[in-house]
């Protein structure tokens, strides 16, 4: 089985984000990058699927500048077999263009099942997975909580609102956007890390993969959100504070 996992390298969740003074983007200097937290579940699921299906191979794909190779090395150390780096050539592609390029790589590679994280935690668009599915004409299951693969199809459980779940039978090829709780991502072992150093990484160019696709969305005016005015600290014993809080919520804030 040919399995692909799409990974995005993103700033660590503990990073203090600062926008550039001219509003053109985010200050990236000194930022620590990690594999997207949801992508880790996708990598683990891809490797598990390989282990259950003899003769399978997992390819990790990532789009971005040269630094994203580091994220792919992590995936290779966990157990992926090879990698494709899509060099963004300094362009700032939007979801539409990224999805076009990824769909081309997946179609060319003859993959049967693709895993991704349900969203990247930088731009928080959560669009690329669904758009890759659209350009390939494949079914998708997002917010994947459970999956069983066999006989050319998958039974996939998707989490929706208020604790409800939808269970789908999906013919392969298909793409799955993974959610926390799907599995427990393994740590890369020392031999795994050593082996990863010699696993092949192929580089392709965004400009050659995207065809004539043009960005649809223009991003501008990156800025910090307005700071809140300092709040009120209440005083007195617990009962007094609680009475005062309830009064303030009803009479001052008028939210209850």
């Amino acid at each position, binding site marked *: 089985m040919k399995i692909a996992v799409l990974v995005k390298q993103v*700033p660590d*969740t*503990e990073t*203090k984000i600062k926008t550039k003074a001219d509003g053109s983007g985010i200050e990236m200097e000194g930022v620590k990058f990690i594999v997207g937290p949801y992508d880790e579940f996708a990598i683990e699921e891809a490797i598990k699927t390989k282990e259950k299906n003899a003769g399978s191979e997992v390819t990790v794909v990532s789009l971005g500048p040269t630094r994203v190779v580091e994220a792919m090395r992590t995936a290779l150390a966990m157990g992926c077999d090879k990698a494709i780096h899509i060099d963004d050539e300094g362009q700032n592609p*939007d*979801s*539409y263009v990224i999805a076009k390029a990824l769909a081309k790589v997946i179609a060319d590679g003859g993959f049967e099942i693709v895993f991704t994280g349900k969203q990247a*935690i930088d*731009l*928080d*668009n*959560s*669009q*690329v*997975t*669904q*758009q890759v599915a659209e350009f390939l004409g*494949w079914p*998708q299951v997002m*917010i994947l909580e459970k999956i069983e693969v066999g006989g050319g199809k998958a039974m996939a459980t998707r989490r*929706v*609102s*208020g*604790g*409800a*779940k*939808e*269970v*789908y*039978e*999906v*013919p392969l090829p*298909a793409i799955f956007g993974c*959610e*926390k709780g799907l599995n427990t991502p393994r740590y890369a072992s020392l031999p795994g890390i050593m082996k990863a150093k010699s696993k092949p990484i192929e580089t392709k160019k965004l400009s050659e993969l995207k065809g004539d696709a043009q*960005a*649809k*969305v*223009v*991003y*501008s*005016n*990156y*800025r*910090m*959100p307005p700071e809140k005015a300092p*709040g*009120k*600290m*209440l005083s007195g014993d*617990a009962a007094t*504070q*609680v009475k005062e*809080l*309830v009064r*303030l*919520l009803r009479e001052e*804030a008028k*939210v*209850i």
Partner: protein
Amino acid sequence: MANVLIFAEHQDGKLKKTALELASKAAELATGIGGQAEAAVIGGSEGLAKELAPYGIKKVYLLASPKLDKYNTLGFVKALADLIQETKPEIVLASASPAAKDFFPRLAARLNTGLASDVVEMKIDADKKLIATHPVYSGKALVDMKIPNSLPQIAMIRPNSFGTAAPQEGASAEVVKKDTDPGELKAEMKDLVKGATGKIDLTEAEIIVSGGRAMKEAANFKILQDLADVIGASVGASRAAVDSGYAPHDMQVGQTGKVVNPKLYLAFGISGAIQHLAGMRTSKVIVAVNKDAEAPIFQKADYGIVGDLFEVVPLLTQEFKRVLSE
């Protein structure tokens, strides 16, 4: 005409509250671009049209197919794409619900246009184009998104961002019934496991009561649930509480959980890690209760109590019970 189309969702035979918020905002934007606000409802009854009219919707398309009584990604994409290609709206809006987040990105790709996700502010600029403000890095920063060269301009709005306008009693909307062909569905829904009835998802909740690591164990969330029941709130948790096994992941608020936008957020025993603040900072009013007076959460709180949550929460439940029954 330059119209604005909304995807109006319903549940248990009634419009979702977010659909009324969407209708109100669509009516305002339609005025800005010289058109009217219209709504698409998939698999709903005519009564829903009557509910939308007072909020400024002039025309309601009821899209019907026996294959779409249950949600299906490809079926919903095709139903809406067909309508959009026929009616050619300038702007298409949805609330950022679990369904819309699933199929709207695909809809935008099919129509070869752009989509702004999880929008918290919208305006029409001098070119009569939509400027949609989208939080990035879980709200640690904001960015403006514009779709200048393709139509329609599509946006999903974060629930509770705009509020609902005062209803215009006696307003009516034209109803257009359409049979829709959902095409090949590919993925087939075999089972729908219902959540608790009447439970509102955290992303759509107006009031949230949240607990952190200081809850100490899963069973203690009962006191938060008791408070939530009294004030009509949903219960959330911090990542520390979820990672400690006190609460399931679908209750997690934060950068790797849910980004919420209630009018009131009550944080109990939550220190306020940066990734938690990122998930709830747009809440209109924030209340923090924590033993540690130095906890960072107090810097974001409108009202703070330094104290033991196990003492404060039951008192709060009692006090709300008393004043709300008056």
